[in-house]
């Protein structure tokens, strides 16, 4: 029974610390941020992904969970106060176990590009693997990023997402207690 697992030990301070980590990750893309708050999410949910959901998701948002994470649904229902949505195409937050077709998620409109999905994607590693070079707002110089767990055509799929700026999804990659954010404003090259 996953419900017996606690959420944040200190909901106010831990959510604030996690938010600042995500805010830093979003404003300095490619820079890994660690979630330091102790957290025991139900498997297979990782610490970083769980912390981001506890910090940002509540009854006012819609959350889509990939089937892979069905075991965590009750835990998220209880701690976030949200009922996971069956509709991936309109959800504000999407937790996936493999990169979905980004164009099928909420993209926002030209007038309201903020009405787009934030995609959380667990990956194996944020320190080794396929190498990318990041450019865009938040980066003074091109910044390297190494990820294990993304599909081989990720750069092309991200380029299609970036090309429709200001519309598009924002991606948060999570590996264990570490996360890296890729906002839609970011252009990504293979290195």
């Amino acid at each position, binding site marked *: 029974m996953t419900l017996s697992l606690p959420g944040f030990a200190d909901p106010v*301070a831990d959510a604030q610390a996690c938010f600042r980590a995500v805010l830093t990750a979003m404003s*300095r893309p490619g820079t890994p941020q660690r979630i330091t708050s102790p957290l025991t999410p139900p498997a297979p949910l990782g610490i970083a992904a769980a912390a981001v959901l506890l910090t940002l998701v509540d009854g006012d948002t819609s959350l889509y969970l990939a089937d892979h994470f069905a075991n965590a649904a009750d835990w998220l229902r209880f701690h976030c106060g949200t009922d996971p949505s069956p509709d991936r195409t309109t959800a504000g937050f999407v937790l996936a176990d493999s990169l979905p077709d980004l164009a099928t998620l909420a993209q926002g409109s030209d007038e309201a590009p903020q009405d787009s999905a934030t995609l959380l994607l667990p990956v194996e590693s944020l320190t080794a693997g396929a190498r990318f070079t990041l450019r865009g707002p938040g980066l003074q110089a091109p910044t390297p990023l190494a990820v294990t767990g993304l599909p081989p055509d990720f750069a092309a799929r991200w380029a299609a997402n970036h090309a429709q700026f200001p519309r598009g999804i924002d991606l948060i990659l999570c590996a264990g207690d570490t996360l890296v954010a890729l906002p839609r404003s970011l252009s990504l090259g293979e290195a």
Partner: protein
Amino acid sequence: MTTISGYNFAYLDEQTKRMIRRALLKAVAIPGHQIPFGSREMPLPYGWGTGGIQITAAILGADDVLKVIDQGADDTTNAVSIRRFFAKTAGVATTTRTDAATVIQTRHRIPEAPLTENQILVYQVPQPEPLVKLEPSRAETRRMHALAEYGAMHVRLYEDITRYGQVAISYDYPVMVNDRYLMAPSPIPAFDNPKLHQMPALQLFGAGREKRIYAIPPYTNVRSLDFEDHPFRAGRAPHACGLCGADTSYLDEVVVDNAGGRLFVCSDTDYCETRRDAGHVGEAA
């Protein structure tokens, strides 16, 4: 200062903070784009910095050191009361020193001292819509932003040049963020506009009455609108600070007597004090 009980940390409830935090993350992902948010009623009136206060409340942690400035000054009513508000409701340390702060809430100035990557600058914004004086309809300005249709603003600058020989905007000078969105930098003097460009610190903007949040990530291109033959020029009073002698800082003009006496002093009080502590002396000191 002792914290008061009966309120959540930093005054706002957690659900409101989450709503503001979600808006902030989207704002950072779409630099310069205004995002609507459910602005709350705060214990001070709209126009006193409620937008900035709500952003500060949503980002502030117990380890943060908060500085609040009002037109550059740490010691005016607005700055003192907001600093005291967060000292009471969040128990955070406060400072007047720019280099010691991690979060700086500002009304209408950017500090003279360069900001670092470890700082966040929060602006209080009265009017977030740069096109408001050209197009009163919100529905229409939203569409203009969607289409990046900013010709009307260039015409407005052009009309200034034909009438006055120069662009006659001295504050809230419109900027293009990341080559995409026209943005109101809040009523900072045009003098401060160049500091917006490629700033190492994250910049967050909150408009409480107008219920909008927007942001400029660190190291983002921010260009003040201009023409090739009329390049943007940042103006300042052609004087040196009377107290510290600085001749590159933004100056306030202070009337000192009934005989037309004037004193020009740094608008950034911390910058001025730091210089005076270092031994710089102005003519009136």
